[in-house]
């Protein structure tokens, strides 16, 4: 027998400091885990805690826990803890890491959690190359819920939901998550390890440490899949279950490094620092300098304004811009305005229309159902809205001839080939601005200065500003000539 008292012993391996000394968040039995005897989770927990200790990142670590037998990570790990919904841990971890780039963010998930319900989240977290470390516990079953099949359940393996064993038809094949993720370009490190014997245990400990180290170095996405025993659900003793990992599971899920770009990957640059707070309004374009100067002073005082306009045409004819210009000019003139577009597939496949109201009273409804002016840029648009125009109102129509069956004796019509007119002015696409000019002339509400100001706010290219100004002026003179005829 050796004589201890004669020797100087030091602790080689003991309880990790990244574990709580006692598990006070547990309701009972606070000195031990809730895991069954021989559970792989306990083994991996210890590996993880040891790696956190060794890399001295306990304060920086945020552990995102799963739903499954691993749900109580926060009972054990004395680190920042967040428990996620079933399958979503890697999505949660992605946002945590982006929020706190200095933190070491771990996502700990089982095979039901990660490979089934969370398949989309893990795939996209990996594909985005999130700088997180994911520990994936694969024990080929749903353990917490009592042993149902998982995507990783082996062919022939029985479970409560595959009582006769899993068959490729109709159940499909065990899902190889590591191999799947290794087809992606972004991950820097992917390894599958096992807990099947001493050699595997040592490799697993090394892999988990590397997964963390990669993040400490700022490299990117690391993923460690651990083939782990579940003696309880597998109905084996702990040692049999351990051997089953090595002798059976490993045949379906070969161990090894599937991706290692850690040598050639450069650490990610630190995120750019945020701008000073007083610069934010300017960046958003809502600072004092960004606001319209306004030409309200040129408005005729005391004049009542209540303009309700509907503008309609095909997508691409500038219907929405016409309306926006009108509203912008109204705002510049110190009036209340609203602009309401039709939206959605209409924008992409055909007709488009918008409602504009300009008033010197607060605008109640921005919905214009009985327009005072209808601007119809084509015949279908005319036919859609012509009956809605209120008596005494105007229709400005883009066409050689106003359709006979649309004629009403209680409204005014200005029908001209505006597209051709715009083409003659230099570009057919300015037809909307010629019609705007006509509308401004007819309504007689908005000062010229406000229209110019609106044009300059909305149109960036000088060539178009010049052309549009010409178009608006020309449209105005056409409408003026028509009203003189009347």
């Amino acid at each position, binding site marked *: 027998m050796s004589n201890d008292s004669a020797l100087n012993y*030091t602790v080689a391996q003991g309880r990790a400091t990244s574990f709580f000394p006692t598990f006070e968040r547990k309701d009972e039995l606070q000195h*031990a885990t809730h*895991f069954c*005897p021989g559970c792989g989770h*306990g083994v991996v927990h210890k590996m993880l805690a040891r790696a956190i200790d060794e890399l001295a990142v306990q304060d920086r670590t945020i552990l995102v826990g799963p739903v499954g037998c691993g749900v109580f990570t926060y009972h054990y790990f004395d680190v920042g803890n967040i428990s996620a919904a079933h399958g979503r841990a890697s999505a949660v971890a992605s946002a945590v890491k982006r929020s706190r780039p200095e933190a070491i963010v771990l996502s700990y998930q089982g095979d039901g959690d990660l490979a089934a319900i969370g398949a989309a989240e893990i795939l996209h977290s990996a594909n985005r190359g999130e700088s997180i470390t994911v520990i994936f516990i694969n024990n080929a079953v749903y353990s917490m819920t009592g042993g149902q099949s998982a995507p990783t359940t082996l062919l022939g393996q029985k479970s409560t939901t595959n009582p006769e064993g899993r068959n490729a038809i109709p159940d499909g094949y065990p899902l190889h998550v590591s191999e799947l993720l290794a087809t992606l370009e972004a991950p820097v490190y992917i390894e599958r390890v096992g807990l099947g014997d001493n*050699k595997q245990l040592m490799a697993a400990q090394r892999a988990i440490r590397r997964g963390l180290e990669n993040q400490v170095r700022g490299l990117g996405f690391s993923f460690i899949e651990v083939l782990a025993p579940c003696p309880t659900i597998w109905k084996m003793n702990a040692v049999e279950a351990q051997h089953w990992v090595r002798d059976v599971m490993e045949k379906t899920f070969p161990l090894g490094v599937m991706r290692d770009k850690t040598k050639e990957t450069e650490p990610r640059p630190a995120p750019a620092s945020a701008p000073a707070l007083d610069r934010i309004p300017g960046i958003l374009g809502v600072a004092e300098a960004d606001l319209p100067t306004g030409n309200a002073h040129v408005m005729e005082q005391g004049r009542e304004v209540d303009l309700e306009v509907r503008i309609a045409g095909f997508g691409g004819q500038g219907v929405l811009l016409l309306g926006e210009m009108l509203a912008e000019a109204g705002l510049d003139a110190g009036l209340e305005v609203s602009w309401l577009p039709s939206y959605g597939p209409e924008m992409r496949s055909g007709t488009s229309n918008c409602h504009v109201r300009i008033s010197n009273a607060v605008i109640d409804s921005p919905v214009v159902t009985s327009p005072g002016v209808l601007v119809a840029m084509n015949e279908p648009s005319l036919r859609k809205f012509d009956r809605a125009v209120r008596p005494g109102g105007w229709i400005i129509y883009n066409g050689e001839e106003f359709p006979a069956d649309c004629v009403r004796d209680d409204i005014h019509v200005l029908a001209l080939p505006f597209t051709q007119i715009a083409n003659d002015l230099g570009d057919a696409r300015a037809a909307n601005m010629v019609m705007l000019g006509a509308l401004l002339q007819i309504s007689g509400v908005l000062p010229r200065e406000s229209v110019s100001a609106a044009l300059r706010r909305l149109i960036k290219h000088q060539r178009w500003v010049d052309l549009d100004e010409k178009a608006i002026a020309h449209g105005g003179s056409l409408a003026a000539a028509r009203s003189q005829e009347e």
Partner: protein
Amino acid sequence: MTDTVKHDRGKIEIDANECKGCGLCIEACPPKVIAMGDHLNHYGYKTAFYAGSGCTGCSICFTACPEPGAITVYRTAVTSSRVEAPCASN
């Protein structure tokens, strides 16, 4: 005991309160110096115990054990400079 017996390079302590008697440490131990006792702890589990000699301090029992603090591994100062002890594959 004879004079040819060397001092052990390590020893382990098993906390019978934490041990769940799974036997993974017994399976893992290369020199086979851990055994299962008959005593039941407060959970009703039999617990593993160190046979008392022959430990190399390799720590593989600690790695195999699922409980955070059930096993503590000690090494003598002579061997403590070795980071990883050799471990046999079973």
